């Protein structure tokens, strides 16, 4: 049974339950109301409505599970940072589960803080930017399946969004717009520079990222996550496309904005970069969204290069998928805490002069492999 069937069952049962009321009302009330309610009941029982409701329930299930993983990511981020930096990390809140509840406690604290909009800020842009940033990042989570049977599929046979990978990459690159908006609308020099840096950075790193993903699409012959992962059942793509894998990881770090590339919020020179003027839960949302994007990045790297949910069968597929994503994230963290921040011009030079040629080379290798008939 896959997730679609499971959710379909739930929706079917729920609709049946509710339809009892509609039909009873239809029988009970006078004719002009009765027909209406009967029509509603009929509509609710129709295949199209059931399909739509199933999709909604599916997305809720998938996104909630992904968000729980994001909480885990935050916890790993703090715990691992602590251990690398030689201290304990979260400890007291949720003492028995290793301080896991610390993020929830921080979230609650941030929720009760005042929302401050600077007087001279552009109010609409200032309030809209977090929404765009968070919304676009959450959208990525919806299209990445955990396994063949666990994702937002559109039919009983497990049909996923056919251009899911493209959709994910597209949603990934909405963020600079939100950052630029946030930086500009805050009416602060630091945020403005942070936003500008973010735009420049995202633009220069988006291209190698997409080129590396394109080489995977070339080998797999599809934009669909399930088909891409199925194409890796023999050999994971990071072995033939090792250059692409490394470039992809570096670009992901730049997209997620963690330390060697966290120039938009370089706290030493630009106080907190583009998030300087945001406080309370808005800042908390930005913080959480960084974890969401880390998770999405790890999941993308897993699905595109690390064989997705393939693994020895003693663990379920979903767990394999998560383990791989966690490992990618751990490597991110490890690298993050080992190096200082890079400078913006060096970063652009690195992006355009090093990563882009490598990504093109990687694409050539992929094309050669494909035309040679190995894949």
């Amino acid at each position, binding site marked *: 049974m896959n997730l679609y069937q499971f959710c379909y069952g739930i929706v079917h049962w729920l609709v049946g339950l509710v339809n009892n009321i509609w039909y009873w009302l239809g029988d009970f009330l006078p004719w002009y109301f009765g027909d209406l309610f009967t029509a509603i009941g009929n509509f609710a029982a129709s295949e199209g409505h059931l399909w739509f409701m199933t999709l909604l329930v599916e997305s809720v299930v998938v996104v909630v599970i992904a968000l729980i993983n994001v909480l885990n990511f935050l916890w790993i981020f703090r715990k691992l940072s602590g251990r690398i930096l030689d201290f304990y990390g979260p400890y007291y809140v949720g003492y028995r589960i290793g301080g896991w509840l610390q993020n929830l406690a921080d979230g609650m604290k941030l929720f009760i803080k005042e929302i401050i909009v600077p007087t001279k800020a552009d109010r609409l842009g200032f309030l809209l930017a977090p929404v765009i940033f968070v919304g676009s990042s959450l959208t990525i989570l919806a299209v990445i399946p955990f396994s063949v049977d666990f994702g937002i599929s559109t039919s009983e046979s497990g049909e996923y969004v056919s251009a899911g990978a493209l959709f994910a990459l597209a949603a990934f690159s909405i963020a600079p717009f939100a950052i630029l908006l946030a930086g500009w609308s805050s009416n602060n020099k630091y945020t403005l520079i942070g936003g500008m840096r973010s735009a420049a950075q995202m633009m220069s790193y988006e291209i190698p990222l997409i080129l590396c993903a394109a080489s995977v699409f070339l080998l797999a012959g599809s934009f669909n996550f399930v088909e891409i992962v199925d194409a890796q059942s023999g050999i994971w793509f990071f072995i033939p496309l090792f250059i692409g894998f490394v470039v992809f990881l570096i670009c992901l770090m730049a997209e997620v904005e963690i330390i060697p590339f966290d120039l938009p919020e370089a706290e030493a*020179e630009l106080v907190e970069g583009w998030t300087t003027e945001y406080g309370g839960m808005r800042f908390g949302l930005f913080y959480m969204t960084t974890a969401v994007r880390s998770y999405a990045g790890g999941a993308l790297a897993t699905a595109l290069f690390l064989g997705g949910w393939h693994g020895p069968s003693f663990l379920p597929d979903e767990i394999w998928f998560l383990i791989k994503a966690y490992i990618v994230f751990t490597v991110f963290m490890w690298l993050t805490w080992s190096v200082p921040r890079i400078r913006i011009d060096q970063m652009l030079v690195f992006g355009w002069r090093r990563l882009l040629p490598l990504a093109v080379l990687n694409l050539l290798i992929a094309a050669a492999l494909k035309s040679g008939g190995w894949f």
Partner: protein
Amino acid sequence: MAEMWINMGPQHPMTHGLWNLRVKVDGETIVDAEPEVGYLHRGIEKLCEARTYPQIIPIADRLCYGSSLTWSHLYCLTVEDLMDIEVPERAEYIRVMAIEMQRIASHLMWLAAYAGDLGLAVGFTYTMRDREVFVDLLQALTGSRLTYNYPRIGGVAHDLPPDFERDTVRAVQYMEMRLKEYEDLFDGSKIFMMRNVGIGILRKEDGINLGVTGPSLRASGVDYDLRKDMPYSVYPEMDFEVVKHEDGDCYARYRVRMDEMWESCRIIRQALQKMPTGRWRVVAPRNAPVGTGLGRVEDPRGEAVMYAVGDGTDRPYRLKIRSPIFVTVSAAPKILVGYKLADVVAIMGGLDMCIGENDR
């Protein structure tokens, strides 16, 4: 982007204290800079005129939170010059050992702040952790962790505590092991080198003319260290080298301080070996004679000078303090112009700002 002034400070993560660096940027390139200081001016020079000579020692500690021992040591040297006191030899050795420990601790704190500025949080925590070793030693020696109040006019406050030699030798060994690790962590990192090599070049002539002293000047190729060139205390007895680099960039400044830590480890070892027995303190007279006293030491940040005028009472008539950072920071515009905004943190971090002694 048009040119605009950016205030980096008074409340800014780069400043490590309360001062303001106004930079004029064209895009991300700095075209002009203007430091503004004075936010932490406490009037210590005036304060000293109202206190007796021993009471000023804890005030001198408060001049710099990073290396308080060197300042109280400098104050004691100045007053000993004024009063013409002969300090027992054991006290001199203890002082030299303690201020070299303080130098290591101060340089480690600088390295921590510098690493933090560059975004290397690991560098911050590791160096602060290893600084703790020396702070613990100094705590066992002096009784406090930050403002030690240890040197006295005519000696030091306490003798060495039991087991101190053993602990010190261990700490120095640990430190030398750690220094190798830092060289992997910093020098071995391509990104660190990219951020440092060729950034913030201070030419030799500019450095001399602008009065820059200490490690920042030695990184520009001037071979001048007061410990060698105008020896005070028992530094002539010690065998160490003056560290010098020719490049004058951020990396050279970093390198000079790292090498100075090696030399300090050597000095601490020698001071322990050569330490004589005997008294560690003599009674200082209450009143100073009419005259002047001059103390001039090599602070971790540069050349620190105090000039005391005595008028025959138990309070100094005037105490002038020369802070090395006060002069060094006035050279900041010269170094900053032409580099990127992100280099401000590397350059100003590399100069090792300390606002306490800067504003006095």
